């Protein structure tokens, strides 16, 4: 009797049969062969045993790791979700983000819905994510530039207009604004402040812009912008005490535009402190050295980062815990990889306006992240790092620990990069 060689199925077919990927006649055919062919059965069973061993590989991570991962991911999502909620602008970003975190039983579901979208409708699709931060940041920057342009134009007499006296009650201002004088002359003689822009005061819709601009002392100075930049450079080179002195002097000049009837002495100093961290002159000089992400952070500054102080807030602490980082950067306790992993989260946290009293701490971390990535031979990158340190220093006036660390790190970095201390 002639021996007929056995036709084995291909390995593709055998493994597909084992994986349950075959159907119909093909599956029945292979099954019949495997049942009767020992070598094919051994191959299939052997592969099953190997894959069973692979599946039983023990993890070197446990429940604690997964819990930390959950917190970290939710923090990322929450920050981004907060950003989207801010963009809708319906109830304020912080409130919207907070609402999104509350359990269903606390907040009626309908209140958290966007009014313009029926989420239950078939085929419902959420709108594509729009870069609202870019729009808001660009808008803020454009507003600042617009104010500068208007001021320059007025100073150069290109936009001559006789302003009406503004009834702020300030004696200096009343003396400065003389009806009938040319706009150019008034601008030269006028004290700092938007009191000489009555149009802005009259339009309620521009009040916020006026308030923001009122905090930007160098813009209201009559000194040329180039001189303001030079003053800032000198301040940066001078060190902490002189730098603070310059900033406070500038802030005090600003505070003199208020009258005693408007604000008390305490409010003057509070306004002075708020005014000094975010001068427009610096924003302009920043624009020359900032790279894109840092520029976006810079616009967040202008949008209302607060002077730091007090203990870390819980959202900030949770964010850092998720990355295993201490509340205040410490080179002895922070691993470079962990720092770089946390960078994006910190930047989102800052840009979403949630940093508030943690602003200095966040800026210090951003400085360190930028430093970790910066090529010392790249002067623009080095300048960006120094800018971050300066921001942290300016924001940390009420937080000595952050201030001291930022000064120390800035000094070390300047030495490292061959810049004057």
């Amino acid at each position, binding site marked *: 009797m002639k021996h007929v060689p056995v036709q084995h199925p291909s*390995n*593709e077919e055998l493994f597909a049969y084992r994986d349950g*990927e075959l159907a119909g006649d093909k599956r029945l055919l292979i099954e019949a062969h495997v049942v009767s062919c020992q070598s094919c059965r051994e191959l299939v069973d052997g592969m099953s045993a190997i894959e069973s061993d692979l599946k039983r590989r023990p993890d070197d991570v446990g429940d604690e790791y997964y819990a930390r991962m959950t917190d970290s991911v939710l923090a990322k999502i929450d920050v981004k979700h907060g950003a989207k909620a801010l963009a809708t602008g319906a109830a304020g970003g912080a409130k919207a983000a907070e609402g999104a975190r509350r359990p269903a039983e606390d907040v009626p579901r309908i209140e958290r819905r966007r009014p313009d979208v029926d989420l239950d409708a078939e085929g419902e699709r959420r709108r594509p994510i729009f870069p609202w931060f870019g729009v808001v940041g660009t808008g803020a920057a454009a507003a600042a530039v617009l104010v500068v342009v208007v001021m320059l134009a007025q100073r150069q007499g290109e936009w001559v207009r006789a302003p009406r006296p503004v009834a702020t009650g300030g004696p200096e201002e009343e003396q400065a604004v003389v009806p009938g004088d040319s706009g150019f002359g008034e601008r030269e003689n006028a004290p700092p402040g938007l009191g000489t822009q009555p149009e802005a005061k009259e339009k309620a819709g521009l009040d916020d812009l006026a308030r923001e601009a009122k905090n930007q002392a160098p813009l209201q100075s009559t000194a040329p912008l180039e001189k303001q930049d030079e003053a800032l450079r000198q301040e940066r080179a001078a060190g902490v005490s002189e730098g603070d002195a310059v900033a406070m002097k500038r802030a005090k000049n600003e505070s003199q535009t208020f009258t005693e009837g408007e604000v008390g002495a305490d409010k003057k100093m509070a306004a002075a402190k708020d005014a000094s961290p975010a001068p427009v002159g610096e924003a302009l000089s920043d624009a020359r050295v900032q790279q894109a992400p840092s520029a976006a952070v810079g616009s967040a500054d202008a949008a209302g980062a607060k002077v730091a102080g007090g203990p870390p807030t819980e959202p900030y602490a949770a964010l850092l815990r998720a990355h295993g980082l201490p509340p205040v950067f410490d080179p002895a306790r922070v691993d470079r990889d962990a720092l770089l992993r946390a960078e994006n989260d910190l930047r989102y946290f800052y840009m979403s306006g949630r940093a508030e009293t943690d602003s200095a701490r966040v800026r210090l971390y951003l400085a360190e992240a930028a430093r970790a990535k910066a090529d010392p031979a790249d002067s623009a990158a080095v300048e960006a790092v120094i800018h971050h340190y300066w921001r942290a220093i300016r924001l940390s006036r009420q937080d000595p620990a952050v201030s001291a660390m930022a000064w120390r790190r800035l000094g070390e970095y300047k030495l490292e990069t061959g810049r004057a201390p």
Partner: protein
Amino acid sequence: MASERPDRSTLSDGELVRLIRGGEVDAFAELMRRTQRAAYRLARRITRRHEDADDVVQDAYVKAYKALDRFAADKPFGPWFLTIVSRTALTRIRDGARRAAESLDAPGYDGSAPLSERVADPTQDAAALEQRIRVERAMATLSDEHRAILALRVEGDLSYAQIAETLDVPVGTVMSRLARAREALLAALGEERAMEPPRS
């Protein structure tokens, strides 16, 4: 933090997704709880490093959250999410992320015992333990492509169609590529056995 979240373990994936779409971000934690171990193991198999796997899984969750509107809520979340994990992991290894061949004798990421000790399940006999170690060593010798497709099938438990979608190749290619990967694993195991000292 986790204890503050309401218990949603009885809800289906689809119900959770609807809650998330309605603004309940915390409901995402329950989806993560259901999938993160498989996701981590899949990413770890593909990338071979804890740090890379950690980044991959976290990135994948953020991507999944942003893409939830494209998820069909009547289907299970796990396989859909694992395709995102695998794509993210494959992109990472294709982009040349820093990684080293995983050593069975290297300590765990948190300083825990090395894998060669952790596989030592006292309930198993010595031969079974040796076999598991051999399988791990053989797996570590495979190419990225073979290891990845095996991981998708074994750790991810994905169907051929899902693997095909992940890798953007036809199902027939998945079938042949998976067979080549298994043959390579068997060959590596054969070499592993050949390198063992003869038993007395």
